[in-house]
């Protein structure tokens, strides 16, 4: 039943925001920052529950640990980049949000290069 708590937490936060917004706009931005941080923290606790079984499955299927670690890092980068971009967009600066997303995409690209090269190598080995 804790999904109810989480949703109510968001609703109460949004309610507070409507009252704080016209009285103190800067504080309302910090309040949105806090609400999204708490909700992201709860989402993070869910993710940790997912990672352990996936890791076991990867070990079972003897996937190379390096690939699995980079995949996890990529998920982390996407996670944080999305958090920052949404906060910037919420503050009204869509351009900065776009820049944050660009940096996130580039970081993911950098991490994905070894995996892509490994795939291409295995494919070329298969070809006669």
């Amino acid at each position: 039943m804790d999904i109810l708590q989480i949703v109510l937490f968001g609703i109460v936060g949004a309610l507070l925001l409507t009252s704080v917004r016209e009285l103190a706009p800067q504080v309302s931005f910090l309040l949105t920052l806090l609400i999204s941080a708490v909700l992201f923290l709860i989402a993070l606790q869910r993710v940790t529950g997912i990672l352990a079984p996936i890791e076991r499955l990867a070990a079972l299927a003897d996937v190379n640990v390096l690939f699995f670690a980079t995949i996890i890092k990529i998920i982390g980068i996407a996670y944080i980049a999305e958090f920052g971009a949404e906060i910037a967009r919420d503050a009204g600066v869509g351009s900065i949000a776009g820049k944050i997303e660009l940096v996130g995409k580039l970081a993911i690209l950098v991490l994905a290069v070894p995996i892509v090269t490994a795939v291409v190598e295995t494919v070329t080995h298969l070809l006669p």
Partner: protein
Amino acid sequence: MSLELHVLFQIAVVGIAAAVLSSLLKQSGRDEIATLVTISALVLVAAVVVSNIGHLFVQIQNVFANQ
């Protein structure tokens, strides 16, 4: 850090109180104290929010960066 609703209410109260206080001070002619009050409220709220964000990022590092 579980769902702390009271942190939310504290921040809202600080924001509203600062707004009311600063408008009160503006009416009674002390403008510089009004700006001081607003800025101090902002700093207080920012301190709380930054500590929570720091806690979130530490958690993220523990989850994603320890493989």
